[in-house]
């Protein structure tokens, strides 16, 4: 009898110990995850449901070769200047020496308008006869995960011991014998949900990288149409800028005031024109109606172009040309440096949107592409009509 009591005591003790360990593990994993599994799942579903608007981008490897990739609107490619991405592709303890540097994969940084420095998203591209090169099993070995969020033959999404949320997604194109390894480490936003949204947004980006049949037609692109497809972080950031413009316009700008938001990849220049406000002039209409083409000096009405947005970019004798009307509020113009002594610069393209309110005549100018349909142009045009995005 004594023996059975002792056995029961030992079993209960061991059971309690195991429960304690489990609680501790669960607590640690919960802490790493930051939010509940169900919240993570719903963020993933929300990202998956978003419509995708893709654009084909070409990255020049060298003068002889290039790579085509499909990325959501507002994203672009830049050479990755570091030797390896945030995820170890080989054993960090025993790095392999590659004698022929041409065999090393090419690194390309995937960026958007808000990834100022390192976006954390890197694509490695290389050639190999081995369709199973850099398998997920190896990546797991070289990158110890504390919590795996998703794993399949080509995908590994995990949280490491530093709490960093990481993505690895591999693709192999047998016809070109080329592999594509998309790696991402989510920036440490204060908002945990935003980190997961960014992680699953990168995953979606990675899966569409070679979806050449899904290119969005550039015709009829509008902000209303593409807005639901934007990542949470892009949407939040853009909203911050345009809300600021709305408040400038509503509360702060008078006379000939201007405000300039300059970022690495886009700019927003809002100004009020006192003369135009008093005389009821809308310069977008005048430039469009006259199909203007001439120097800045030859513009047939008083304007603040070379004293304002174009100051330091173009001079009085440089060319300004109306290209096309984008909407009832916005026009696309091109400007060109005509200095015969300088090297030939390609023309710059700009969207000018007219905003007429009870407070006067305002204009919003941004640089754009030659079709005037990049994401900033779409937002500017929408903002000029609704004073929000």
């Amino acid at each position: 009898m004594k023996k059975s009591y002792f056995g029961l005591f030992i079993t209960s003790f061991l059971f309690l110990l195991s429960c304690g360990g489990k609680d501790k593990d669960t607590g640690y994993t919960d802490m790493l995850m930051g939010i509940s599994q169900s919240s993570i799942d719903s963020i993933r579903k929300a990202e998956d449901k978003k419509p995708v608007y893709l654009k084909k981008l070409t990255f020049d490897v060298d003068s002889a070769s290039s790579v085509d990739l499909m990325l959501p609107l507002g994203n672009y490619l830049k050479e990755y200047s570091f030797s390896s991405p945030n995820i170890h592709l080989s054993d960090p303890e025993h790095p392999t020496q590659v004698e022929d540097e041409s065999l090393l994969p090419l690194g390309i940084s995937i960026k958007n308008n808000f990834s100022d420095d390192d976006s954390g998203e890197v694509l490695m591209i290389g050639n190999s006869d081995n369709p199973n090169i850099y398998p997920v099993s190896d990546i797991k070995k070289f990158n110890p995960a504390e919590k795996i969020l998703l794993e399949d033959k080509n995908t590994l999404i995990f949280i490491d011991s530093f709490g960093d949320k990481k993505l690895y997604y591999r693709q192999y194109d047998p016809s070109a014998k080329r592999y594509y390894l998309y790696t991402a480490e989510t920036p440490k936003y204060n908002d945990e949900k935003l980190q997961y949204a960014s992680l699953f947004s990168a995953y979606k980006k990675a899966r569409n990288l070679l979806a050449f049949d899904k290119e969005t037609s550039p015709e009829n692109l509008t902000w209303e149409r593409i807005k639901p497809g934007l990542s949470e972080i892009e949407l939040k950031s853009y909203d911050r800028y345009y809300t600021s413009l709305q408040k400038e316009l509503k509360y702060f700008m008078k006379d000939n005031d201007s405000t300039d938001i300059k970022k690495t990849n886009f700019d927003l220049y809002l100004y009020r024109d006192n003369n135009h406000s008093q005389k009821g002039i809308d310069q977008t209409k005048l430039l469009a109606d006259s199909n203007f083409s001439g120097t800045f000096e030859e513009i047939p009405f008083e304007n603040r172009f070379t004293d304002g947005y174009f100051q330091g970019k173009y001079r009085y004798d440089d060319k300004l040309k109306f290209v096309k009307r984008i909407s009832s509020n916005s026009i696309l113009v091109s400007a060109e440096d005509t200095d015969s002594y300088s090297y030939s610069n390609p023309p710059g393209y700009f969207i000018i949107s007219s905003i007429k309110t009870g407070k006067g005549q305002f204009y919003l100018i941004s640089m754009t592409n030659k079709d005037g349909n990049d994401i900033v142009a779409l937002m500017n045009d929408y903002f000029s009509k609704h004073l929000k995005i």
Partner: protein
Amino acid sequence: MKPISALLLCSLILFSCNPVGEKISDETPVDPQLVSTEDHLDLKKGDVLVVWGKLDASFITNGITPSFNLIYNLSLDGNTVSNATLPMFSGSAKRINSDYSVQEDEEEDKQESTTDSTEIREGKLVKASWQFEQEITRIPIEKDGKYTFDYKIKSKGSDGESMFNKAAIILRKN
């Protein structure tokens, strides 16, 4: 009254009569290109909204602070209640939480010294780091409501644009 009771009472009085008012906004970093906003400010008739500027500067020469302007708009339900453009950190009145640390010149002894005084010895360049808060304006509230305070901080010279000089806004109510 026992001494301990007296001490407790004094502490209570000191804590309850906060001379600079109750802090009602977080001190958030300001992007000088954007309008910053403090919204849902729950204010009652008779309150006074006190706007404070906070300077966090390094390498200040001879105690001369960088110049900034505060441009603000206080609104209730989208309607402007008060707006103005005001200088920040001008003069030495109503300055609190001052922490002035002299950083000696390179030729001098490199030891840092901390002092509350900003007196400058004549003919000598004194570099210092300086943090303080200073009252900018007081706005009497005439109607209960949830107010929005939109503002911009604009530097008035190259000193203000230096990465070593940061200005922020703190809102308090009396």
